């Protein structure tokens, strides 16, 4: 595999989207080619940096509590409707 072929497959390689055969071929090329190896390292670092930096946003503490409250509200409404329906059923003239 030459540099051109390796670089064409590099993103799929980094994303674990290659067949085992292609994966091994790209890996073998990266072991022997300093320049392609450096490019791959850059791409790996960029992905890692993005992943890490995008996971540092503080999540509002109240968010989960608010979701649970809204779900309970939803259930209460459906419970109420259901008991109203039952009542209508039992007290139907």
């Amino acid at each position, binding site marked *: 595999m030459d540099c051109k072929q390796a670089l064409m497959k590099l*993103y799929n390689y980094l994303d674990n989207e290659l067949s085992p055969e292609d994966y091994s071929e790209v890996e073998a090329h990266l072991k022997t080619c300093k320049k392609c190896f450096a490019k791959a390292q850059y791409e790996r670092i960029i992905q890692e*940096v993005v992943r890490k930096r995008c996971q540092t946003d503080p999540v509002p503490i109240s968010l989960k509590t608010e979701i649970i409250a809204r779900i309970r509200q939803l259930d209460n409404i459906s419970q109420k409707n259901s008991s109203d329906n039952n009542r209508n059923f039992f007290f139907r003239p």
Partner: protein
Amino acid sequence: MTDKRKSKILRRELEFEREALVHTDAVYRMALRMTKNRADAEDLVQETFLKAYRFWDSFEKGSNCRAWLFKILTNLFITSYHKKAKEKQQFAYDDVESYYLYNQMEAGNDKQLLSDPEHMLFNQLLDDDVRKAIEELPEDFRMVVVLSFVEGFSYQEIADIVGIQLGTVKSRLHRGRKLLQKSLWQYAVRRGIVKGKSG
């Protein structure tokens, strides 16, 4: 209402909390990247979970709940928020070369930068620079870049979540990568980390 029904609802709530709500942080961060502001992100997350709860019985237990939640989130974003943030900018992504950052470094011939990019470049960038670089990506590209880089979904999972073809995932991710690298480079230039044109 009967006790039986009450306990059924309680069980459903607990199950939802255990299976779905554990992903609140990840869903919120994705929402934040897409809406670019906290208030809209919170609304979008709440809508996502309420919709998920309504359809909880149709969720196939044991399958990937996180992917299912992201699918609901992206659908809601595309239908409700997408129109709000009309992006009229044209992106000349095809003008940006692949491996942009590496090529810029190589052209600058800075040996330290080339040999230790992690410390010499990336660690110097602020969290905000990186987040802004992501948020500046066109919506379609941003979505797949975050799903891939941050959430680690496979191409097929992304295709299912966003509702696009596998080939489209690949091309959006490729273009997203190029634009992201150009943007990161521009932040590095603005911060004086590297020399070069920031335009």
